[in-house]
Each structure stands twice: as C-alpha cells, then as structure tokens.
C-alpha cells in the first residue's frame, strides 16, 4: 500500500509582507523512487502554483536545492521519500536572504564570499599560448579538486551555529575555498597575504569547532580537515606576523 505523505511547508512571500510566515500542509500519495524534486514539482503543478523553490540539475551536482528537511540541511533533489516519515517539515535554509517559501539567495552570499576571499588564482605569470602547460603532480591536482568539489549549496552555512549568529562569518565553505587556493602552487599568495583575508574572527578563527558542517556536507568534502589545515597555517602565519611586527616598529 502506497503511503499518504504530509509535507508541512514554510510559506512566505516578501511581496506580501502583510501575510505572516506560516506552515502549510500538503498531502500526496507516495510513488516508488520518489524524491523531494518530484514531490515539490507535483505540488506546484497540481495543488499550489504559487509555491516557490529552486532546482536546476536535480542530480545533486549544482547545489541549488539546499533546504531544511525535518530540521536538517540537505539537498532536496537527492532526498528520497522512502527515507522520510509520514509527516515531513520543509523549511528554507537560514542565514541566507529569503526570496520566497523555500527559495533563498545562496548565489549572492557565495559571490560575496568569493569576492572577500579573492577566490581566484593570483599570479603575475602571463599565459603563453605557444608553450606547453606547466607540469603538476597528479596528487596535487586531486587535492585541489577535493576542495574544489564544493557545490555552494549552503548546507554547511545553514547548519552552522556561528554563521547563524554572526552574519559576517565566511563559514566552512569560505574556509574550504581558501584552502583550495592555498593548496594550488599556481596561486602565488603568501601566508601573510592569506592571513589578511581569513586570519580574523569573521574568517577561520570564528569557527568554534562544532563541526555540523562536516556532518551536513552533501558531497562529503572533509571540511573538518580543511578547517584544521587553514587554521594551522593561519595560526603559524599570525604568530610570525606578530613576532615581526614589533621588530619592524623598532
């Protein structure tokens, strides 16, 4: 017998501020292999055309559909209903600006973070179209890729206690982004330059070590290791800067 499922969905449209945020119940019959992607589209097409949510790839690749499923940040597209109870609550990710119902503005948040951390290769080298590519050890390439796998879904941010209290905190995604460039021999920034960017309370030292990010990352990036790596490097860089600073003044 197919189950009857209830979805308790957060509703709010910033265009209509007089209508208070609320939870609205929707019911539908479970189908085999059903995901929240299927559920939400079905609800919009058959029950409530105004329901707002975001999907793009529906294959856990693009990071569009982060939301709280029964309180836990995850990707809706890869959440199978067979793993859910009869009543499921869907809420938008916190921290990010709410655009309506389950849709939040992760894109703008991540762009600002990328600008703050200057998340691009810093080099004075000019590309020579006639030259062979610079060599790189494949192990290094794989290490960079491991950090680059972040899909900017925001699950680590939405589930982070610090990010929820401190809006300026770059969070695990931001620290991981910095780690990606630190690992890259093509990026010529020194530790002191990175310290300028992330050696602060809004950067890597803001983390209080609760590690929900590591549990919640839907693509399994080892965020705990990345945080430790950047923190260690930045602590050393900070120590050196502090020792050099009085000497410079003297």
């Amino acid at each position: 017998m197919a189950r009857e499922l209830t979805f308790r969905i957060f509703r709010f449209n910033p265009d209509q501020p007089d209508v208070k945020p609320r939870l609205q119940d929707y019911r539908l019959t479970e189908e085999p292999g059903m995901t929240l992607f299927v559920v939400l589209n079905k609800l919009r097409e058959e029950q409530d055309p105004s329901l707002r949510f975001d999907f793009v790839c529906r294959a856990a690749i693009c990071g569009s559909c982060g939301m709280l499923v029964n309180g836990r940040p995850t990707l809706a597209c890869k959440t199978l209903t067979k793993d859910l109870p009869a009543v499921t609550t869907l809420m938008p990710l916190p921290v990010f600006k709410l655009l309506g119902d389950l849709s939040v503005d992760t894109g703008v948040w991540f762009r600002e973070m990328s600008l703050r951390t200057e998340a691009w290769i810093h080099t004075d080298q000019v590309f020579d179209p006639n030259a062979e590519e610079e060599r790189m050890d494949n192990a290094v390439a794989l290490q960079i890729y491991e950090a680059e796998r972040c899909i900017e879904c925001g699950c680590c941010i939405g589930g982070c206690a610090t990010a929820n209290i401190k809006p300026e905190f770059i969070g695990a995604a931001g620290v991981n982004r910095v780690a990606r460039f630190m690992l890259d021999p093509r990026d010529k920034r020194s530790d002191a330059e990175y310290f300028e960017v992330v050696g602060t309370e809004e950067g890597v030292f803001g983390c209080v070590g609760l590690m929900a990010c590591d549990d919640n990352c839907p693509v399994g990036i080892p965020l705990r290791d990345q945080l430790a790596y950047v923190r260690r490097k930045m602590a050393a860089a900070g120590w050196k800067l502090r020792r050099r600073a009085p000497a410079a003044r003297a």
Partner: protein
Amino acid sequence: MRDHEVLVTDVLVIGAGLAGERAAIEAALAGLNVTILSLVPPRRSHSSAAQGGMQASLGNTAMGKGDSPDIHFVDTVKGSDWGCDQDVARLFVETAPVAVREMAHWGVPWTRVTLEKRVYDGKVIEEDPAKVGLIAARNFGGTAKWRTCYTADGTGHTLLYTMDSVVLKLGVTVHDRVEAIRLIHDGEQCFGAVVRCLRTGALRAYVARTTVIASGGYGRLYGASTNAVINEGSGMALALDTGVVPLGNMEAVQFHPTGIVPSWILITEGARGDGGYLLDKNLHRFMPDYEPVKKELASRDVVSRRIMQHIRAGYGVDSPYGPHVWLDIRHLGERHIRTNLREIAAICQNFNGIDPVHDLIPVRPTQHYSMGGVRTNIHGQAYGMYNLFALGEAACWDLHGFNRLGGNSLAETVVAGKIVGAAIARQTKETSPDVRWPLVYEHLAEESARIERLRARAVRPGGENVYALRHEMEQILSENVGIFRTEGPLVEACDKLRELHRRAQDIRLRGEGRGADPELGAALRLPGMIRLALCIAKGALERKESRGSHYREDYPKRDDVNWLKRTLAYWPAGADEPELRYEPVKITELPPGDRGYGESSSFAATAGRQDAGANPS
C-alpha cells in the same frame, strides 16, 4: 512605461554557463563593459553537470600518442556524419589545445599523467615518463586517440568554477535570477533584451551595442532528458521570435546512450570510455556483436540506436519504467570508481540505492544534447540580424552536424567563447552606441501587456492549464520524434504540435500570477517552447534520409545527393508553423565517406555478422 528600469551596457550576454562566461571574459579583456544575465547563479549553470571531459589533441597520454588537430578534425567530421561546417571544425581543433592550457593557467586542476600502472580492456598501459605531470586524457566515443582532458569526475564543474573565478576577478557584471523574454530589435538590428526579474517579477530593459545568446540547449522539451530543468531552449526561442533569424538543424537531437532509469540523470560516457561494458538481460556484452571495432565507444547516435535495436529484439531487461540494458563498470575496480567515476557512484547511491562497485546500473538512451540552434557564421554572428551573436549549445555554429562527439561540447563552449568572444569585441567597438528609446519602450510595453493579459484572466475557470499543455508537448516529442523516426508519427507530431500552439494562446493561470510567480514564468515561456518543438518535428519530417542522430526507418540511408545540406527554420511573424529553407554544408577538406562505425558502414555490418558468434565475452 517610464517606470521600468533601463540599463545600458556595451555587450549583453544572455546565459552564464561556460560559453557565455568565456565570451564575456574575452570582451571584458578588450576593455568593454559587459553584463551577463543568468536564470540562476552562474555556478549552477548546466555546464557544471558535464562530468566527462573536453577534447583537445595534446597527445600526452600513451594512448593519445601521435594525436594532432588533423586527427581530431577527422573524428569530428565523421562524428557529425559530414553535417558540420568543416572550416568551423578546423578552427575548433586548432584552438582546442590552447584553450585547455589556458584553462590550466586560470586554475583548472586537470588530471595529470602518472606512471601508475593501468590495465585497459585486457591491455597494460605504460605511460611515457617524459610526460608525467602534463594534462592527461581519457578515451571517449568516436575518437581514434585518447583525447578527452578531464578533472577526475567533475570536468564541467571545475571548468565553470574556474571560468567564473576569472569573471569575478575581472569584475564583470553578473545579474542572476533574471530571464530574457524578448529581444529588442527593428527587424534588422538587435539592441538588447527585455528581461523579467525572477526575484520580484519586474520588467527591465537592457540596452546593448551587441547581444549574445549563450543560453544552452532545449533538452527539457523532451519529457525524459538528462538536462537540468532550466534547459528549455529559451534563447533559441528569443532568436526565432524575431521572425528573421533562423534556427539550424533543429531535427538533430542527441540521445545519450546511458541515462539512468528512471530519473534520467546522466551516467557519463567516461564510464564506457574508462572501460565499462553494456550488457543485456542475459548479461551478454552485446555491443561487439554490432560494432566489432568501436564496441561501446562508437559515436553516441550509433550506440543509442544499437541499444534500442537490441531491446526491440527482445534482449532488454524489463522494469516498471520500460525495458533497459545494464551498464557494468564493476571490473574497473573500487579505487578507479571512487576516484575517477565518483560522481557516478554517488548518483547510483543517491537515486537508485545501488553501488556500481558491486551492482549493475540500469540505463537507457535519453535526450541529452541539441546539435541545432541559432544559426551563426564562423564568427558567431547570427544569420539575419546585425549585432546579435550566439554560441555554445544554443548556437548552430556548426561544429557538430548531426552528431556531437562526447567531449566536444565542453570544448566547444571554451573554444567558441574565445573565438566568438574576440569577434564580439571587434564588432562592439565598431558599433556606436545607438539607444532607440521608442523601440525600447515599445518592446517593454508589449511584454508588459502580455503579462497583464495573463494576470487579468487568472484564476477564472476554463482555459488551458500550462503544465498540462507542457506535458502533452513533452510526450509528443518523446513518442513521435525520438531515436527511430518514420513519416506517420512525424506527421502526427506536427499536427498535434500546431494544435497545441493554438491552444497555448488560451493559457489560463490557476494562481494569481503575482510578482515572480513561477506559473506565470512557465506561461510566458511555453508558446516559444512549442514553436521550437515544431521546428524539430517539421525538420525531422522533411529530412528524408538518415544522418547521424536523425534516423528515418523509412529512409535508412544517408543521402548525400539530396540531403548534404543544413535545415534553416524561420518563423515569420503571425505564422502557425515554421518555414524551412536549406543551405549547403561547407566541405573544405574531407569529402563524404564511410564513418567506420554505425549502420551506414559496410565494414561494420559485415564484420559484425562474422564476429557475432565468435565473441568470447
């Protein structure tokens, strides 16, 4: 109308995937003011989902030794079944190696050559120690050499993230969550676009010296597609709706051999390229029976047809979602799967609850790519309208003809971005800013009125349901304009789509359509989507031959005498169906011949019969 925001820029790029961003970078580097529009945050564009790789003849890998642009050219032309423009293919293959290296310079962590021992299809591969650390390549279908450069399992992702990092670095303006709904033009020249904000629903005009369509493909016109939900061909519809810009070869639709059943998410060609097999219900590896030379790695059109042919012969595995075949990668080993094919393992786990290290993967050919699109010249300039460009999947450049090789689409985005981007920069500098305010406000007013008409009739009973109409369109294309095509069903598809197009004039919203309402967005988009569907169906009906992905069971042979030409679909203002014209294909180097695989190859057919019983697997 004066309350609408109007923004002015030098170059307006519609679409922030790889093609759009690469072109924007080129224009920005030339000192121009560039604005990129995107339905979604740029890094969520569908380019990010390309797992496989990017073809460029670097020749670093042992199995790619001796590769050159010449060999890449031949593979591409054969792959296209001689449907491509050969001057474009030549330009492309010569530029691809530089484009790959440039992406390395900007930060892509390409997988590199190592001395790690590897067994492939029973053979040990020994890499050249002198090449260690250079960009590696994997095998893909329809290629004579291993040529597809990749980053583990996430090539599109790393390319797009790197490309977008350059966009950030250069400070190029990006407006995300907006949708272009109309080009501003006077029938001869393009001046920008009318755009709907998907945050607020407000209309704006972007006025530009040059406008660039880089909005990707139309996969979602088909019900079952590997594509992201945003791939609705909206940029192609914008061009078609000018009445003067044609779409090229819309009937050339690629079906990827391995969409996973039943979510139709793509399982990359890298799975077969790295040595995966296709098995039938008896667990027999059937591809060598049909294609003794290329086996699982014939071109996509051929492998897809062979699978369907085998299923029709009764060898498919039955399932509630229809018959399928198996993809087997178990013999590649856990280490390889968890590194180079990790994305596949994740998809199998997430959506089917299986582990490809131990389990077989259910797959069936699924709509994947549109070779057709806005017809442009070699510089990316759209036919029929000044100051309008197109590139990437949205365009018909025409690099792919009637079948695109795996690894050639990522390559096209980056290579065309570089080449067309430079042409855009040149053209923009030659064009003086010319803001035709009456024209801008006229277009804004018309779009505004279209929205108001939908809102005024909203919620009232009767009329057509946008989602129901859409599903009808998806079904017509999937059932009648699929892998195997014949006259009867194609005629029926055209009739039904014309009827659907008429009914779409009477869409009635069930919600109120306020602000950025998603149902309103769907209603604005659907008529254009149906027009694209009609271009596909009518193009397929008229083309009385088989070429590449376009396979007519009633005309099973390629016909170079009558059909060595490209379809151009125009939609004159007020017409109820497209008008088809044709132009010759540019043959500059390689005259039409045998592909060396597929039904048209006499070699494959005879060798297939001889080898069928002797295959040891």
